[in-house]
């Protein structure tokens, strides 16, 4: 059996959609952070698959950069979550409502 580009693309789309649904539907901040990572990795897989299919190296290079950026983003995101957790003692999104008054 040959696994073609469209199979990789399907998986990448699946990852991206799972991530997007996770960001919108889950209430636990840490799960939401992980969902964002899933979305980025979905895009990474698409880049890698296309780079392979088209024989253009640029797509692979982007993947490396995205991995680094995702790490920076996760560091800042976790720092924000930790700062909020210290103050409120919770990581449930529904408990952060002081901006709605």
């Amino acid at each position: 059996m040959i696994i073609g580009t469209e199979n990789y693309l399907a998986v990448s789309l699946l990852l991206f959609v799972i991530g997007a649904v996770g960001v919108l539907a889950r209430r636990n901040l840490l799960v939401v952070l992980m969902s964002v990572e899933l979305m980025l990795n979905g895009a990474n897989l698409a880049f890698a698959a296309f780079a392979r299919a088209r024989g253009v190296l640029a797509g692979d290079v982007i993947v490396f950069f995205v991995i680094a950026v995702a790490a920076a983003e996760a560091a800042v995101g976790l720092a924000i979550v930790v700062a909020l957790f210290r103050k409120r003692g919770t990581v449930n999104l529904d408990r952060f409502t002081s901006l709605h008054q």
Partner: protein
Amino acid sequence: MNPPLVTGDMLRAAIPFILLAAGGTVVSLAGAWRSKRGALFAALFLVLAFWKLFPLLDLEKGIELWDGAVVADRMSAFLGGMLLLSGLFALIVSPPVLRREGRNRAEYYGLILFSLSGMVLFVSTTNLLVLFLALELMSIPLYVLSGYNRGDDRSGEAALKYFLLGSFSSAILLYGAALLFGATGTINMAAMTGGDPLLATAGAFLVLTGFLFKMAAVPFHMWAPDVYDGAPTPITSFMATSVKIATFGALLRIFSLAGGAANPFAHILTGENAAKILPWLAVMTMTLGNVCALTQTNIKRMLAYSSIAHAGYLLLGLIPGSGAVDAKGILYYLFAYLLMTTGAFTVVIALSTRDKGREVTGVERYAGIGFRRPFLGIAMAVFLFSLAGIPPTAGFFGKYLLFSGAVHRGLTPLVVVAVLNSALSVYYYLRPVVVFYMRDTDTPVRVDDALSLRVASLAAVVLLIWFGCLPNIGSLPGVPALLHWVGSAAAALP
């Protein structure tokens, strides 16, 4: 013989970009020894970058840097100049606020410089990789900065909200970039042609969605009022202006490529059905922004909704209609928007007080300020009149350019909606002025008299009126000179 890899011109053009990133590093590191002087160091780098950027305004032809990944031309120079001005305002108005709270540290200013370096790259590239990196470089420092006020619960929540929706939108943009790459086999948007139409269109739409999130256009605006409200006011002012300039600047560059019919973005702009999407977005954005602003009693939230409405007006300029994208109108409007929004937030900073660690910014507290503090009263009135588009301010002139340009491109129905919207906006823009002058209370209001706040608001007032109605006086540039710069920047686009 091969042309030289790096020329002197290229180095000179790259210096402003390098200065900003280097400045961010130096200021953050120097903070370990001279934490109190952060604003000064940062301003030094900013002014240097500004000085090096200025000659680029006269470039005959764009200079390609880093193997074509970044383009330094008149467009990026003009947008970069506006971004640096926005950053300079942030550096001037921040120290009084931070000193009040005892957290005047250098990292804050270093982060502003990093964010600016991301923005300047963002408006100077057609390369998908650099676009994504610049987007993250401008956004990540802003996530941190909006949560800088750690004593205030709302600041942390603003950071969280901005981070979650910001990274969500970056991921969407990145997936769009992947699809564009897959469809066309290149990461240079200027070279993209043809490819699988479904992939290319889907990619272009996802990239556009990422942009709409950043500029807070309806239906991706939900984060803006909360984030603008919770973030420290100088940061609100900085991101309200600079992020808008950066996103609209980058979109101008990308959309101007769509002239080639095979470019993926042409599907969005000139395709059969797709052409209807942007007009709807523009109408929804300006209407929702204005209608929601009507009921706000907190001035920061009101200005947040007003900035959504202004994004709607600016979107008008991006609709090609029967012509091309209206770069000139957008640039002039962005310049006016920068001055009036920063100015209004500066007055808010001068008048804000704290109650149990929370910033209080209700409009009703400003009763009688107009007579007790004549300068602040007049300055705020000028900013709000300009935001409402009342002459003789730059806000009026910018709106006039944008709307008349749209009429010429055959978008008259949209302009009618936009004019009705700005009539509606007069109501909420005038309410603070009414409170300033027509109500009075006995309770004294604390006003921050810091020199820097007064300098910043005075500069904004003078520039707004100057570039709203005055001609060139001697060697001093006036409206015609600004129009000339705007025009030559717009002409640098393909």
